[in-house]
């Protein structure tokens, strides 16, 4: 029965996806017919948490550990999103993304730098000619509680400044009030505003209240055109957790089976240690396989994580546990 319902759901998603992609957003005006979105499967919270914690018990040592940690660095969106950010700090972070460890050029570079729109041009200049992308948060980050026009303008400007990726936030208030169509439309409109830039949709799972709502928001975001779905802004606790990440990866898997589109995943906030990072990689591998073990489909939104990974890599190289003071901060 469960698999029958799942197949019915996937079938519905396929149909809906075809309908949505055949109608350009701009032609769906204010007087459009109400959009009926497919329901999402309910989540077995106990099983989800059990599986996430079972996957955490995998032990990665030596060669596999080093390979995993090196991959984690290449998957990192090195992030600074603070009121006290300065051009100098952003430039320093860019150098760190380009060459995380000054003594070993084979480590890194990171996947991207993630900053506020005001620092996109600074980062773009500092990273010119490299493979490191510039991601910008937009759409009234972190709350998303501004009129749509302002949010779209925010995204457009960030793209104009040169952002390669836009990290938008959904309107959690609307999501919790049951206005799913509003959330869907805002994501779709932002996707359109982004043009060529990749769109990451931040669900802020810590504010959504239950796994069912998170699953629903994940499905909506993917249907509305997200290239990535992302757990958190990093401003709210709890941020990324293994069960939430597993749940979102499962949503990505179902969506992939239904449509053939590969959506990326980005846990952000709360991933601080190498051990946690490896745990996330195990979850990805077990849920979506090797294809997703790539910076194009999986990212870590992090700042403190990088130094911990570097300390572990140096520990493996030298045999001595490292001191945090020996690694650059900010």
């Amino acid at each position, binding site marked *: 029965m469960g698999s029958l319902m799942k197949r019915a759901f996937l079938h519905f998603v396929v149909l809906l996806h075809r309908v949505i992609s055949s109608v350009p957003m701009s032609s769906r005006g204010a007087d459009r017919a109400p959009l009926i979105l497919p329901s999402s499967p309910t989540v077995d919270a106990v099983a989800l948490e059990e599986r996430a914690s079972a996957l955490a018990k995998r032990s990665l040592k030596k060669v596999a550990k080093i390979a995993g940690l090196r991959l984690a660095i290449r998957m990192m969106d090195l992030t600074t999103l603070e009121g006290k950010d300065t051009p100098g700090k952003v430039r320093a972070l860019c150098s760190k993304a380009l060459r995380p460890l000054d003594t070993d050029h084979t480590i890194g570079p990171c996947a991207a730098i993630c900053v506020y729109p005001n620092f996109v041009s600074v980062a773009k200049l500092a990273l010119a000619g490299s493979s490191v992308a510039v991601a910008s948060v937009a759409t009234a980050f972190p709350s998303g509680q501004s009129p749509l026009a302002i949010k779209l303008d925010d995204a457009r400007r960030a793209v104009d400044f040169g952002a390669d990726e836009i990290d938008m936030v959904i309107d959690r208030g609307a999501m919790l009030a049951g206005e799913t169509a509003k959330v869907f439309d805002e994501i779709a409109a932002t996707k359109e505003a982004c043009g060529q830039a990749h769109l990451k949709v931040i669900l802020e799972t810590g504010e959504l209240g239950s796994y069912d709502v998170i699953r629903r928001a994940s499905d909506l975001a993917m249907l509305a055109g997200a290239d990535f779905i992302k757990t958190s802004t990093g401003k709210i606790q709890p941020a990324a957790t293994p069960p939430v990440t597993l749940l979102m990866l499962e949503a990505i898997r179902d969506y992939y089976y239904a449509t053939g589109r590969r959506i990326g995943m980005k846990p952000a906030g709360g991933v601080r240690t190498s051990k946690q990072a490896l745990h996330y990689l195990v979850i990805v591998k077990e849920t979506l396989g090797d294809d997703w073990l790539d910076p194009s489909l999986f990212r870590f939104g992090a700042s403190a994580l990088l130094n911990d990974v570097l300390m572990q890599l140096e520990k493996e190289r030298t045999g001595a*546990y490292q001191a*945090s003071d020996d690694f650059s901060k900010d």
Partner: protein
Amino acid sequence: MARSKVVKRVAKIASAEPSLIRVKVAAEVEGAASKDSARRESPIERVTVNKAYKMYVGGAFIRSESGRSFRIKGVKSTDPEVVNIPRGSRKDVRDAVLVAKNAQAGWAGRTPYNHGQILYRLAEMMESRRTELAMSLVREGQSQSEASREVQLAIDICVYYAGLCDKLSALLASHNPVAGPHFGFTLPESLGVVGVVAPRAPSLLGLVSSIVPVAVGGNAAVVIVTSADPRTASIWTECLATSDLPGGVVNVIYGQVAELLTPMAKHREVSGLSIWGDLGDLGIQAEADATESVKRVRRYADGDRALLSTDGARGLGYVEPFLEFKTVWHPMGM
């Protein structure tokens, strides 16, 4: 029939004939109950509550992350108790260093007067556990009078160092004569995280003499206890836990020095090493390992162990090696 005997009897029946269990148990329990009521006047046999001795890290009593343990036994033939004690791993050392690192700034930031208050309270806590500490030393093979003397000496050393805390600056800082209209001050500061290898013996006095002076200077300590019976150390850490000493300032791990000293000596977060007892080549190796991160190393070999057995090792000389001296210049003004 006492209950434990009933249980044993049931187990015996169960192994013999499972189908009979229910009937026989009912009969046995009924019989036991009537006999119990007949003997209500006599003391009831109770289940003994055995103590799980654990390591002390970050203000909590923990087992080893490795799950390993070693078995120890009292030295005297009258003490047949066999106890499992957690055996610390390299990762336990690593984790403890991290905990110590996070606790150190807060400890160093407290006033020397407060350091003194807390160490004096440690003495108070030891005083109220005198009997237990002495019993533990007797269990290791000492006579009652030797044990009492060692406990008393250990408490006195705590009181000594409690008094020293707010005098450090007066004893060690200086106002240097400089050529020019400036003051030149040299001030003692804490070193950071200090690794301590406690002496194997005497077990209580050795702990106090090696650990307390490190804490006096505002440092956090990660201690490897290698004594034959770490139960004394465990009881002492219970004094620490109730002394208002912030969690993580003193962390105590039981284990083998050959296994744990190298990772500690190589650990770049550890700023100093205080190694007690003659460890032979291991001590020399630790000094070599410590060079990479330029650690301050002090080794207290046999001579100091002799000192411990007389009136304890105490003095400014045990504090000073684990202090950093900072010299500042300040204009005199008019």
